[in-house]
């Protein structure tokens, strides 16, 4: 299995959204009596950052994993870059990058060895140091994953998901459990990846994160999509329905206070 690197590098289509690179139709998954995902449909344009939002147990991760080929699809279809996931999950996996929720790596290998190994699993030779530079982990090149801080782990996890220059990068709750500094730092990384032309699909339950990063969001609840649009249009629509906040929003919030007091710098050496 070899890849033409130049062809695999996604082309950035600035401004207007490109052709759909992910097409999901009526996706369903049931665990026993629990309908985890109950008929989900959407399209993701190339170069877009697409967010799947929702409370815990809404079916975000299950939806994501079915699209990734990590979980069998009960019914419906998911097509990624023209390939039907249920028909050829491995061909889909070869074209996408996956950051699993709380994913872990082999403890006995250091970061460079891991990236090289993962590259070889896609039949590629990777420039591990460059990948680490992209996620600002060059000084940890010879460390093991377990010695990294939470934010560093997530960044490494993203680097590992980028070894095959994926057409679509899937991030499952990339900032859960991180402090505000590390979360903002990771946002910067996602924007950088987006600027390079990768399509990004992420799940989160932080609304502020979705507002910062996503071109469009799908809000899920109890296994179905209850709203799908650009964040600001969803907000406009709500206001249009006559919604007013009980408490008037001030120009700053507690997180701004926290960041003002503790600084924007990462605290990873503690």
């Amino acid at each position, binding site marked *: 299995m070899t890849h033409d690197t130049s062809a695999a590098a996604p082309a950035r289509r600035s401004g207007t959204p490109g052709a759909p690179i992910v097409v999901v139709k009526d996706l369903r998954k049931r665990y026993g009596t629990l309908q985890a995902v109950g008929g989900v449909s959407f399209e993701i344009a190339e170069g877009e950052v697409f967010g799947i939002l929702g409370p815990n147990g809404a079916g975000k991760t299950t939806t994501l994993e079915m699209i990734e080929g990590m979980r069998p699809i009960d019914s419906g279809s998911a097509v990624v870059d023209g390939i039907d996931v249920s028909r050829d999950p*491995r061909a889909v996996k070869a074209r996408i990058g996956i950051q*699993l929720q709380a994913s872990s790596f082999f403890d006995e290998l250091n970061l460079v060895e891991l990236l090289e190994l993962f590259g070889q699993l896609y039949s590629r030779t990777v420039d591990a140091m460059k990948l680490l530079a992209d996620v600002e982990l060059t000084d940890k090149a010879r460390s093991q994953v377990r010695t990294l801080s939470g934010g560093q782990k997530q960044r490494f996890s993203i680097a590992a998901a980028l070894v095959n220059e994926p057409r679509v990068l899937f991030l499952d709750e990339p900032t859960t459990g991180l402090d505000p500094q590390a979360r903002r730092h990771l946002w910067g990384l996602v924007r950088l990846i987006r600027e390079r032309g990768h399509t990004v699909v992420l799940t989160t339950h932080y609304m502020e994160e979705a507002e910062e990063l996503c071109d469009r969001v799908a809000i899920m609840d109890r296994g179905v999509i209850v709203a799908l649009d650009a964040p600001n249009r969803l907000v406009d629509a709500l206001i249009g329905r006559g919604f007013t906040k009980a408490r008037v929003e001030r120009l700053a919030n507690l997180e701004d206070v926290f960041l003002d007091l503790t600084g924007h710098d990462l605290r990873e050496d503690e």
Partner: protein
Amino acid sequence: MFWALFVASVRMFVRNRAAVFFSLFLPLIIMLIFGVLNFEGSTTIQLGIVDEARNEASGRLIDGLADFDYIEPSTGSRDAKLAELEDGSLDYVLAIPPGFDPQIGQESGLVAYASTADPAQAQVGQGLLQQAVGTALFAPGGAPPGGVFGAPPVRFESVESRDLAYIDFLVPGIVGMTVMQLGLFGVAFGFVQLKRTGALRRLFATPTSPAYFLSAQVASRLIIAFVQVVILFGIGIWFGLQMFGDYLTLAAIVLLGSVIFLAVGFSIAGWAKNEDQAAPVANLISLPMMFLSGVFFPRDAMPDFLANITQFMPLTYVNEALRAVVNDGASIMSLGPQLLGMGVWAAITFVVAIRMFRWE
């Protein structure tokens, strides 16, 4: 992909301290301890006596020989005693011919079969034996007067035989044990850990197929097993181990033994959700075999009922085959029963492994 996973797998094993300790260092330490202790220790002459005369003279000779501190006599049939001589359990076999009636100045007709295993020791032993027989025959009340023998009392004949020391028994047993430990602990713990932490799931987020991963795991463990066998043999030979068989046959048995215990390891790894579940099961399987499959001590010493049960243990077959090759120079063709036993176990454990195996 296979190669990358293989290299990673070897690297991960070598860097995993617990796995290296239990599967590589523990057998090595045990061998060093037992090798230094050296359970033989006796400097007595192991003398087998075949009494074909069964008369007053032969009885007097046997009683007389038993009085010597440096002689440990045992009696039995000619065939049985010669067999013991060949396999190294006896140093000499003294045959007392029918109609034995020793007279001063005449040939006694006594023949002693001597082991060829240790020529230097044989010289000393022959002198001692001549003296003992002379004393027992002609001077029951004291030392024999000088020059009364017209001929030496005993005529010596060499018998092609092996001088097996404890190290010769121990090394094949330790090799068998290592193969078991490597399969059981080398796979079970590493794999369960990958499963528990989710590293395995991450691996399968790539287009890798499980077959590549499993074959890389197996291949890496086999290579490690062979390296370990080479190390154990090297140290064994330094301690005086004698290798009578060929190394290719030995390698074949190590391979088959590894297959059995890797399958057991994968059964445990596939079934267990975490290391806490895997550890007791792995120990429950390995400990009885370590002590009952003849790793350190011969199974002959066991009570009959125990010996009857333990002969069917997989490690018993492996150990017996290894000893047959190392101690007796057995060829692969002559190992029918052991190979059959190992084959049956390989088939059983393989089926169990497939049944028990779960990726998540």
